[in-house]
């Protein structure tokens, strides 16, 4: 494995691992706070138990999220020193603000998790709200940095150096906003459906009980609302990509030729050597309509771009199809569950089974979406300014650190899953709830 590939693999693996915990860290506090708020309003102990149970999950996941996030902030420099050296000053602002958001999250998470009996109950609830909000802000600031790597603004480039830097203009780059909204909604979608899936599975195992019904209700409300809004956010993001990163749009759609009234492809496999995308279901004028809101708009194909600047078209296209496919299925599921809930038929076994079956798709879409963003930007680390290959460290044997980190993360992943299983599913309190509920 050459050094560049090893460094990219390590970065990719670290991101793919962290994003799972980051997404849960954004969404679980929101659900926890909703449960606590319901408890405050109704005085129904089941809501309190649920809030406490989710808080326990948050403790474990937030710790792994905090350390794996630290890994990323170091790795930016350790793997891509040239990137940080040249761009550090430009993107420092969102990172600094993220530092503060992270601070607030960690402080109030500590108060929330360990303060149940030590502080007034309104302050406890307030701490939960701060955790949920600051998690959202952290995600926003970090995604703004990724936006800048895709649509760099806020500077003048002179002799390959960033001069005349305007930190706030850089932070508010064109891709940043749409990307941040898309990411935050993705976190709610992924974690919402996954939580609904876990409680759905428990519901099937331990039979009809209010605890899991309430949990599924809150989780589906969060995930279901987010995935429906994701349609709008995805549209905004796609139009931004169409306007600023034609190579990325062409790769994710498998669009090789420049066309008036380009079709929208569903599925299909791009053949970069032959410059065609085969086996796709094509909707005439669909891409032009979606990307530019005009059926006769010209869509730039990959033929306009030198082949050395192409991303790996096939993987980008397949990741994009996966993301959109999973998102669409979850939109359908969300509409169906909203309707069933009105009809009071949500908690029949076949419906819950379907929810369980489809619940991992949010995370699949989240990972696939980051593959689209990151691989679609290649071969650039800063779009049209710095190539990834020119930013990589001179440190040899990156494959060693890559292997070491991968093994560490694998072990951590297994243990975390095991612990969650023990705490959410088999802890003594669970048996307590079952008894309470079945009586």
């Amino acid at each position, binding site marked *: 494995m050459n050094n560049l590939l090893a460094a990219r693999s390590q970065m990719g693996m670290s991101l793919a691992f962290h994003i799972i915990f980051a997404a849960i860290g954004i969404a679980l506090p929101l659900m926890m706070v909703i449960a606590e708020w319901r408890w405050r309003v109704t005085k129904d102990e089941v809501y309190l138990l649920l809030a406490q149970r989710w808080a*326990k999950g948050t403790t474990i996941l937030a710790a792994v999220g905090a350390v794996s996030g630290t890994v990323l902030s170091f790795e930016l420099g350790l793997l891509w020193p040239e990137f940080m050296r040249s761009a550090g000053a430009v993107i420092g602002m969102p990172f600094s603000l993220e530092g*503060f958001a992270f601070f607030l999250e960690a402080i109030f998470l500590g108060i929330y998790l360990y303060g149940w009996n030590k502080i007034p109950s309104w302050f406890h609830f307030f701490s939960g709200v701060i955790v949920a909000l600051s998690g959202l802000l952290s995600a926003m600031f970090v995604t703004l940095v990724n936006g800048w790597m895709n649509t760099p603004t806020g500077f003048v480039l002179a002799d390959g150096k960033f001069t005349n830097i305007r930190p706030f203009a850089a932070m508010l780059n064109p891709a940043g906003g749409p990307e941040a909204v898309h990411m935050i909604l993705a976190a709610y979608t992924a974690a919402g459906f996954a939580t609904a899936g876990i409680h759905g599975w428990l519901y099937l195992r331990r039979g009809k009980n209010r605890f899991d019904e309430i949990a599924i209700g809150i989780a589906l409300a969060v995930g279901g609302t987010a995935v429906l809004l994701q349609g709008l956010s995805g549209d905004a993001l796609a139009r931004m990509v169409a306007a600023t990163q034609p190579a990325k749009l062409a790769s994710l759609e498998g669009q090789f030729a420049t066309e008036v009234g380009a079709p929208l492809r569903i599925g299909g496999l791009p053949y970069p050597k032959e410059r065609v995308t085969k086996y796709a279901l094509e909707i005439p004028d669909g891409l032009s309509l979606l990307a530019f809101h005009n059926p006769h708009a010209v869509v730039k194909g990959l033929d306009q771009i030198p082949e050395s600047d192409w991303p790996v078209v096939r993987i980008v296209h397949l990741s994009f199809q996966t993301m959109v496919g999973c998102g669409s299925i979850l939109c359908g599921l969300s509409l169906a569950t909203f309707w069933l809930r009105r009809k009071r038929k949500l908690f029949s076994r076949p419906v819950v089974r379907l929810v369980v079956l489809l619940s991992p798709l949010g995370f699949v879409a989240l990972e696939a979406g980051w593959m689209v963003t990151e691989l679609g930007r290649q071969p650039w680390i800063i779009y049209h300014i710095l190539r990834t290959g020119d930013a990589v460290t001179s440190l040899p044997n990156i494959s060693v650190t890559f292997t070491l980190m991968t093994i560490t993360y694998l072990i951590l992943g297994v243990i975390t899953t095991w612990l969650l299983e023990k705490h959410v599913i088999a802890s003594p309190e669970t048996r307590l709830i079952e008894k309470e509920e079945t009586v």
Partner: protein
Amino acid sequence: MSSVSLLAGAILASLVMYSLLAGADYGAGLWDLMCRGPRQQQQRHLIEQAIGPVWEANHVWLILTIVLLFSGFPDAFGALCVGLAIPLFLVLLGIVLRGCSFVFRSYFTGERQTQLYWGKAFSISSSMTPLFLGILIGSISCDSVVIHGGISENGFLKTWLLPFPIAVGILAVSLFAYLSACYLAADAGSAELENDFRIRALIAGVTSVAMALITYVMAASSAAGIRQELSSRPAAWLIEICALCAMIMAFRGLWLRRFRQARIAAAIQVALIVVGWGIAQYPYLIRPDITIANSAAPDNVAAAIDAALGCGAIVLIPSLMVLFTVFKRRQGVTHTEQASD
């Protein structure tokens, strides 16, 4: 004061906070490894209670330090990441293992033996991380990190695998252990536990004085630049004298069992040591080539980050005060809730 020096000051302040708060958490991890005798369980429980609610917030000071370093001094951060990649990577591994194993141990419900392994992983990684943090500080003080065009002149080992940085690493471990034992003695609640950590604080305190003298002597040959500043700048003298006074107060507090006094004095002592290092290092960030001036971001960027820091502090300081008033009031150890089995 220019906005760039203000930013450098903020980085040093953040490093001081990290040493005082997270440093003590690392130190507690080291003591966890050395829990002995009839009160082993109570000692572990005290450590767990002291760290549990605050370690994540304390850890963020390091994130802030790193973020401010790469925003304000990108060239210095780039050089650090090349020349000292290996110790940085080891710090990172230590941070990951420490955080995860701490939570895993607290939430583990399986066999007792496995839980003890998590405890070991927690305490070993807690001791390893400050060693490499100290090595990083030692390395940037001793003229070994020279980067030209993204290439490290001294390779990737000879920048840090040297007697002087390793001595600074051991100094950091012993200082954190000392600090932590002082805090734990003040938090202990029972006379026996107080006594356990009092003895540890005294041992670690004497060790760190010895290590400080050893590094000072070693600096004569391997870090002449910083030693010159330490012994010639009046500001450095003043800080050395104050640190000495704080140390005497801390030892006196430990000796007379006035643990609150010892805790405050020890914190002041460690803070002054870090500040003293910062003043002796000035105007360098990485000796011998990289200074505050030649690696800084443009003035307007530094000014904007300073402003963001000011706004952030308005929110941060009251939040931190709430956190510490909720969890660090002297309340003794409650053995009944969540016993560790």
